[in-house]
């Protein structure tokens, strides 16, 4: 094999990875930003996987009914808000553990979505539009890699907004206070429980929107195998990103690229170990979790009220 073909193959592999990262990362991005908001308030919502799937189903259904994909996105967000409110309210009862409630809601959300979504498997709903960032190029491969969904720039902008807001807005400071030391927040007169419920609802909204992306853009249909655990991996991603929205965005792109590794290699004609490469995001999750937990050290940047940071 000559040098040039080698270079070409590598270039198109990189392009495929870039395209994959841009395409696949959006649900990671939204779910992790949502989880970031929730965890900053001192609670963990493991149920976002269920929210994601329920949002995908709800969004698809409403888009089908109204003919507008954007109303579908809104509906998906509202499904998420309801799930978030449910989680927030349940966890506010005495002696209720947020992680256990999260697991219950994950099963509840997916189950409900499968149950209500039966009639949605066949019909085709209108899809979200995409933006051609690669129109200037005459390489078809580049154009397809740079064909992104509007939700992606929205999500990236949101990451920036959250980064600013956590430091420089009344809401952000109150949220972080509640997540850092609830007793202090109470002593200062900040309403701990309402803020946490609000943060969980907001997190649910974003996770729902992430779900709408799955059903209304990529892969762009409703079926029961739609999510492959993105909602759960996004939770791990928040820890890896050390609760910073900007790092969440970076990590989401990284996870997107890892998810695109299998298909990208396949498109290069490398089929050996296809399933192995498809497992890349999961392996990455495990590796990153192992790398970010150093025994005997508290996790820098972790909100002090999270149940797993309490010693």
């Amino acid at each position, binding site marked *: 094999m000559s040098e040039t073909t080698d270079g070409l193959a590598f270039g198109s592999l990189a392009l495929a990875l870039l395209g994959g990262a841009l395409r696949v990362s959006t649900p990671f991005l939204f779910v992790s930003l949502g989880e970031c908001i929730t965890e900053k308030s001192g609670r963990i919502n493991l149920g976002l996987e269920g929210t994601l799937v329920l949002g995908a189903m709800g969004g698809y259904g409403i888009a089908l009914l109204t003919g507008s994909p954007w109303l579908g996105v809104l509906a998906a967000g509202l499904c998420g808000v309801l799930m978030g409110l449910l989680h927030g309210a349940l966890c506010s009862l005495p002696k209720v553990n947020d992680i256990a409630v999260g697991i219950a809601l994950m099963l509840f959300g997916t189950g409900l979505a499968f149950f209500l979504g039966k009639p949605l498997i066949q019909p085709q709903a209108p899809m979200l539009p995409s933006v051609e960032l690669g129109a200037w190029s005459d390489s078809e491969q580049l154009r397809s890699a740079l064909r992104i969904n509007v939700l992606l720039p929205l999500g990236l902008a949101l990451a920036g907004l959250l980064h600013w807001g956590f430091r*420089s807005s009344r*809401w952000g400071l109150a949220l972080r206070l509640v997540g*850092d030391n609830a007793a202090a927040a109470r002593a200062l007169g900040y309403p701990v429980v309402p803020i946490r419920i609000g943060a969980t609802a907001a997190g649910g909204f974003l996770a729902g929107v992430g779900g709408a992306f799955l059903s209304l853009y990529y892969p762009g249909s409703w079926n029961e195998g739609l999510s492959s655990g993105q909602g759960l991996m996004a939770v791990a991603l928040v820890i890896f990103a050390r609760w910073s929205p900007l790092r969440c965005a970076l990590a989401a792109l990284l996870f997107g690229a890892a998810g695109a590794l299998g298909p990208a290699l396949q498109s290069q004609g490398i089929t050996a170990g296809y399933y192995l490469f498809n497992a890349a995001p999961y392996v990455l999750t495990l590796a990153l979790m192992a790398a970010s937990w150093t025994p005997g050290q*508290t996790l820098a940047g972790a*909100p002090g009220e999270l149940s797993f940071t309490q010693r």
Partner: protein
Amino acid sequence: MDALTHTLLAADVQDRGAAVEAYRVTKRFGALTALDDVSMKVEAGSFHCLLGENGAGKSTLVKCLVGYHPPEEGSFMVDGREQAIRSPRDAQRLRIGMVYQHFTLAPGMTVAENLLLARGDLPLRIDWRREKAALATFLASTPFRLDLNARVADLAAGEKQKLEILKQLYLGQRLLILDEPTSVLTPTEADEVLGLLHGMTRDGRLTVMMITHKFREVSAYGDSVTVLRRGKLAGSGRVGELSTQDMAEMMVGSAVSVATAPRRRAADAGRMAGDIRLGVDGLCADNDRGMAAVRELDLVVRAGEIVGIAGVAGNGQKELVEVLLGQRSASGGAVRVDGEAYGATRAELRRHGVFSLPEEPLRNACVPNMSVAENMGLRDFDIAPFSGGWLSLRFLRRGALTRRAKEWIEAFGVRPPDPSAAIENLSGGNVQRAVLARELSGAVRLLIVANPVFGLDFAATEAIHRRLDQARNDGAAILLVSEDLDELLELSDRILVMSEGRIAHQALAGYVDVAEIGRCMAGHGAGGH
């Protein structure tokens, strides 16, 4: 003209410390009467001290005053007018603020953010440039100095205490209540903080009411005192007119001797010490953030001696104690007990008779929501006579646990004397006693103690010091880590000074140069200036 004088007067009053009076206050917790018909008076612009034994009701009284839990009976007067204080909000309206016994800061946030959050009326969008400038102006108007951008978790205890006080001053308090503010501080830090507050009361800007167990602080900074005893008013007066002896008698209700034990004589130190019980060789350990906290530390503790470790908090003492107790793994070096390798497992602790009183015992030595009896049984609940029976299935014998707990509660004066109470509901001093009972009643061969009298009243302090001395005379090896130099000077046979994770200085009792120790604690004087 009249109106103008009036506003001028009002403004004048607003910038002065408040005068506060409590009138016949009673507070009950279920069957327990924590405060019984207590009246007291604090003059405007004075530095008032509230004294009493552990569990006397001091914290309860001031919590009533700040509306944390309103009393059943009685009333409060502020500047001569009766005020209903039903919630912290009411207290804030009257500009009465309290610094609690534990820190109420958000550790993950910066000093500036903590101050701003305390103010409460934040704008939707925070203009940090303007806010920081305003905060810097405010800081300049107080005698306290802090870095606004520092993260609270990175501050030393003294700085956190300053921030707690600053938070209250930022809210414009006219009465500042401090609940044992110096229990977490080194003597130098304590003097600095109290000196600054004292200065503010001299300007008449502030009234301070401080709960303390330290007579030294009362005589150095106090104007007047109120003493509580078992929920009742035991006496009050001006500091100049009451001797330490008088105050101590009011606290315990009978004649006492407050003279501390004489310092160890050199002859005493020359007494033959026994075999090496604890040997630490080149020990290294990291702190929670992965930075080296203990660096190649060597030390030896022999049977029948107390080795004191002095040092400013945060120089690796905490990590050293944690390694010795098995709470933290060492990153290098070796620990030997009785010449054998030691990894602080339960079997080794038992075999070598290692006992300990770590700091913050509620967190480090207790299970907060288990009962006093259960907590007292943590060392030996799994061996006879507390477990056993049928087919050696090792059932727990609760009766035996409770019986022993009753004995210990009696012997160590734990209050309330109820073995089934959850230990987290005991006052700080009583948690300490319950843990001490567990750790000092066994066959102690090696004892590791950190700040053993932290937050205890003088009578309990005396009792514990006597017990430590007794354990030493009975042949135990004791490692005593303390931030209180007086305590170390009184008890230790040898004093080591720890600085930046190393032993910076060693001295035998009787040959101690206190000034030299101070210099070494401050890192050879370099860090202190």
